[in-house]
């Protein structure tokens, strides 16, 4: 018998016993929902990893040292690296919450921002912003200009989960909200009693487009000022001068060479006990992915359990169906059905149940992704997750229907025909 005929028979039977069919594919649906959810989240993580790696390159290292570094040291280091290496010093982050530092715009106090000192080369890595105005240049660095860049979240969508109702009631306006309504380009802001000019706005892309969010979830608006200016204003507040050195070399092996030469330079400057904390960006990406995979493994395990339960349900219902249709099997055998025809008939029927389970499960899984997953704006649904879910459901029902269907195929026609 041909497949379309088998599908027609199977579908007629499933439709004729809707409630029984629904109950038997329900467990499969739960399993598929879990798989769908897990695979969707996992595929998203992989995609982000790819895009993060593409954005920053695999040859990026971030090194943290406890010492402030000056421009001479910058030039020394730049000289040690190959010509195409991008080197950038970044200060640590100075948050405006809870510090005595205040930010004012025309006497209005703004809060909820961070201040970071950077160099023009900062732009070489993970730069996803749309720049309005100009960037910090070397002249700003050399002359410690009072200029600032501000991140603006104009494209953002609501990133909150459904039940996330935490509200931040602060006595002062948050910079994040403020920049949505005020165009600050070329305007003066007062930071730590010094007047800065906003030379550029960094428009943050919507989360959907921003691979960087996987690495550093950036929700606090940041004011970027020249590296040297930051040290003048804030280094003493924190009591220490941490500097992050970012080197981008192009690939992993050159990154390792650069790490060695960086360590030896820092030791030559700060003594043999200097132990810079070097982080290879690619390792960091891999580590994040590993963490994600580990947490999803537990989900996957639940999914497998549900699929086994679903498979047993399918097996049970197939056995019951075969018992109640023994006579039909006898008639079909008398009319010319072979053992294979009977086997396939019940296997196809069970696989159709599995398919129903897959469809119901994917709808459930889709709802789960919409309402349970973090960063829902980043979720997109890949065709391969759908294909995988369907294949898993079909495979499970195939495996579990095989034994009862084989029992049915084995029935002797003359005995099956006598069955009432």
């Amino acid at each position: 018998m041909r497949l379309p005929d088998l599908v027609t028979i199977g579908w007629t039977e499933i439709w004729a016993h809707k409630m029984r069919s629904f109950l038997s594919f329900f467990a499969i649906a739960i399993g598929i929902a879990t798989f769908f959810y897990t695979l969707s989240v996992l595929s998203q993580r992989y995609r982000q990893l790819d895009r993060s790696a593409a954005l920053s390159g695999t040859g990026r290292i971030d090194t943290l040292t406890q010492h402030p570094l000056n421009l001479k040291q910058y030039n020394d280091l730049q000289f040690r690296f190959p010509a195409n290496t991008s080197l950038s010093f970044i200060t640590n982050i100075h948050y405006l919450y809870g510090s005595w530092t205040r930010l004012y715009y025309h006497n209005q106090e703004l809060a909820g921002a961070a201040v970071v000192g950077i160099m023009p080369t900062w732009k070489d890595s993970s730069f996803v912003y749309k720049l309005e105005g100009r960037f910090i240049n070397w002249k700003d660095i050399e002359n410690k200009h009072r200029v600032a860049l501000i991140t603006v979240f104009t494209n953002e969508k609501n990133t909150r989960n459904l039940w996330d109702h935490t509200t931040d009631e602060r006595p002062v306006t948050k910079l994040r909200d403020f920049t949505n309504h005020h165009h600050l380009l070329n305007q003066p802001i007062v930071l730590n009693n010094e007047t800065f000019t906003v030379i550029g706005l960094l428009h943050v892309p919507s989360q959907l487009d921003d691979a960087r969010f996987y690495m550093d979830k950036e929700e606090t608006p940041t004011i970027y000022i020249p590296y040297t200016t930051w040290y003048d204003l804030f280094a003493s507040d924190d009591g220490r001068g941490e500097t992050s050195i970012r080197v981008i070399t192009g690939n992993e092996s050159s990154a390792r060479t650069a790490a060695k030469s960086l360590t030896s330079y820092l030791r030559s400057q700060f003594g043999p006990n200097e132990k810079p904390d070097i982080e290879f960006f690619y390792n960091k990406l891999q580590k994040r992915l590993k963490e994600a995979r580990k947490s999803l493994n537990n989900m996957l395990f639940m999914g497998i359990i549900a699929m086994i339960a679903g498979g047993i349900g399918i097996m049970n219902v197939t056995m019951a169906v075969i018992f109640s249709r023994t006579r039909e099997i006898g008639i079909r055998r008398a009319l010319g059905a072979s053992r294979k025809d009977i086997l396939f008939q019940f296997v196809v029927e069970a696989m159709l149940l599995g398919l129903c389970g897959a469809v119901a499960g994917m709808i459930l899984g889709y709802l789960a992704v919409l309402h349970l997953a973090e960063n829902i704006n980043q979720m997109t649904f890949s065709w391969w997750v759908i294909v995988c879910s369907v294949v898993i459901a079909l495979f499970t029902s195939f495996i579990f229907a095989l034994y009862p269907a084989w029992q049915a195929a084995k029935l002797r026609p003359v005995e099956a025909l006598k069955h009432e």
Partner: protein
Amino acid sequence: MVIAQCKNLIKIYNGTQDFRALDEVSLSIKQGEFISVMGPSGCGKSTLLNILGLLDEPSGGEYLLNTHPTSQLSDAGRTELRRHHIGFIFQSFNLMPRLSVLENIALPMRYTDMPRAEILPRARELAKRVGLENKLNSTPLQLSGGQCQRTACARALANRPSFILADEPTGNLDSRASADILRLLQELNQNGMTIIMVTHDSKIAAGTHRTIHMKDGKII
């Protein structure tokens, strides 16, 4: 031409006490014959029919179908022969309740490699032949007993079998419908179809060429 031949067929049902349902039955069926088999319950009529239909295997003896011995055949081989050479008509019709008349008639063809496009036209033609061209889309539940049995007759003809085995085809029908089905079978026989029919009704048996009487597993 002999199309089916039984040589000393024996069928023993094993149980607490072995029961000999067929006891050295020999029988030749020629092409174009219309044979009725009569006898009391338990005399082995149905067992003989099951063996002739390759639904059951004899415990001894040989059954030749179109001169081919069948005792050594695998299940697949028996199925293949059954599919192409034998049509069945049952007492209780044995139609598929969820399928229409047309689909019921088409069912045996679905198990062959006949091109799909030819199946329904042939089923329609067969339905016309048994006078059901107006009931094609009815399901068995909407038909009378006689109409059900007509459907079963058309279905038995689907794969152009060598012969038709009918197990008490009028057993569930009133006398008018019985006469009707007998007429249909006679008509099929006149067109060349070989028919072997088990019946309890001597009036029905009288309408056939030859009547075989059985008792205690033997032909008398």
